[in-house]
């Protein structure tokens, strides 16, 4: 049975909780959608809307991606072979040069 996507209210609770777990209090920003007249920083409602969208697009799209295995897979489960593909690298261009240096 497919998961029910989180509602706006559920995401707002998650976002505030995640930020609070990092020690960030969203209440530092002005309430509502209007920007802070002194600093130009956005209102809390605007930030929450942006972060909800971020969770529904960026996080969801990344999580749905499976790195493909380039070799011969045979009948093996692609999800298992994916573990062998493309080990992570922070600086892949640098690693390329070092690999051949």
């Amino acid at each position, binding site marked *: 049975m497919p998961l029910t996507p989180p509602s706006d209210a559920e995401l707002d609770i998650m976002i505030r909780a995640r930020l609070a777990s990092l020690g960030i209090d969203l209440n*530092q920003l002005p309430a509502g959608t209007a920007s802070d007249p002194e600093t130009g*920083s956005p209102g809390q409602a605007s930030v929450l809307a942006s972060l909800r969208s971020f969770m529904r697009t*960026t996080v969801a799209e990344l999580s749905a991606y499976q790195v493909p295995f380039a070799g011969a897979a045979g009948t093996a489960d692609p999800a298992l072979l994916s573990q062998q593909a*493309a080990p992570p690298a922070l600086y892949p*261009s*640098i690693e*390329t040069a070092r690999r051949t240096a």
Partner: protein
Amino acid sequence: MNPVDSVDSQPTDRTIDRRSFVNRFAVLAAATSLGAVALPAVAHAAPSATAPAGINPNAYGDVRPEALADITELTIAEAASLIRQGRLSAELLVEAYLDRIGAFDADYQAFNLVAADDALAGARALAGAAYKGPLHGIPLAIKDNYYTRAYPTTANSYLFKDFTPPFDATAVSKLTGAGGIVLGKTQMGPLATTRATTPDGRITTVNAWTPADPRTNPGGSSSGSATAVAGRMATSSVGTQTGGSITAPSNAQNLTGLKPTMGRVSLYGIIPLSYTRDHPGPLARDAKDAAIMLSAMAGEDPNDPRTLGLPPVPDLVTAATPVKRGNKVAMRWGTRVGVIPDFTAGSSETTAARRAFLDKLAGIEGIQVVDVRLPEDWDTLTSTAFNNVRLPERSEPFLPLLRKDLRSFGVSVTGWLQGSMLGANEYVLGQRAKVLLLERVLDDLFEQCDVVLQTSPNPFDAIGLPELALPIGFDSADVPVGTILGGQPFAEDRLLAVAAAYQAVTDWHLRRPANPVGETPEPISVDPSKSRKPFAKSARGKVPAAPVPQGRGRFEAHEAAELSQ
């Protein structure tokens, strides 16, 4: 212009085993059945020449008459040549730029700080001094996210408003060590995000080609660095690029910008936006100047491990020196220029300029223009979601400041909060996706070509490959049109060679914008019989940014949140 180099000369991309990805994975796959692991033989060979300690005398051409008549027109190569010949003093060159800064920077808003007296003192100290290097006496503008011990480094942010670093960024030390003179610090998008604005979003820097119209984007975030050079208020400048912030302002303002391979230039002493994607590099007047600047900036730095153990810096200045066969400009190295799908699609002025650019390239001996297909899953691996993988690198180093005062991030805060939302799973996946994308770019895209034209800087920013921006024309409103070439790891020499050949058969890069309305200083000539006339508005002392003129408009927080820098 030099004759074609000897046959043993080769660009850096021929010294690195591009196929190592395929070979390595193929061998590892085979090993699982054969029971043995044997990695492929190494294929890195030393390039034919490394960076020169001084000026390569064959690499500096004649000085153009218009630049002799107005020294603010001089390229680095031209000015350096005149200074070495004793025909131009660094002091006079600095004076000429201070005149223009005093006359026009209240309109341009390119600088956050002009260190006028210090620059003059530095120039005077060079008179009769030992030759310091290829930038001896050259006035430079430095983006305000590079640490400068003598001046505040604000990144146009409330967070760094009162920050004066305890040391110079390595890149700044290298530039001044090579004889460069710091004229000042340039305006930028807050924390290197948007086009240049105040921290609360008020637009400051304008495009030097449309100083009366702030709606024309000057390119961000290295906006001030571009406007300073295009507006002839510095000979060259430096910027940083995380998502197009060198290539975009260079394209917008008719400059040649070079975003080098990750690790080629030290990031030590530069305020981070994204550790794995920040690249320091020059915004210059032509390919030769970009090569001189990068040669000075590049190299190992014990304070930045990303710079260690890399291929040696090749002779970039010679690479950027056009060659001739007979009377015709020719490519230094035979080069296939890849054209990606849709590069010339549509009927806009930009695509018309691109078509003309390709025609011109195709007429240069040694260049082959080829259509290329993009690697599998290109759209997915370069999508907004995968581009956003950079964002935790934005939030993590700023976490104490996010806890303390969100408002101090001004209009840019949302991107930092987005970074806080991305989990470690997604971040690790993003680093794997980068490896996959680089494998496919090297093994598929660069199987079809040697350099590739880009329609967005972000894919190569993400995987750390070099990009060069160059002018290719103007639209009907006389606003510059540029394009971006991408190269293989550490192949800045190949990119420079292509740009140099193109610039030897075109003059787009030599065109300069008209001055803003207002009192204009008399141009200063190299001719010793014509002395400089004092200009009352010439910048002096330490000049902070002028007040933002009314009517420039604002950048709002929701717009900043959507950007890709």
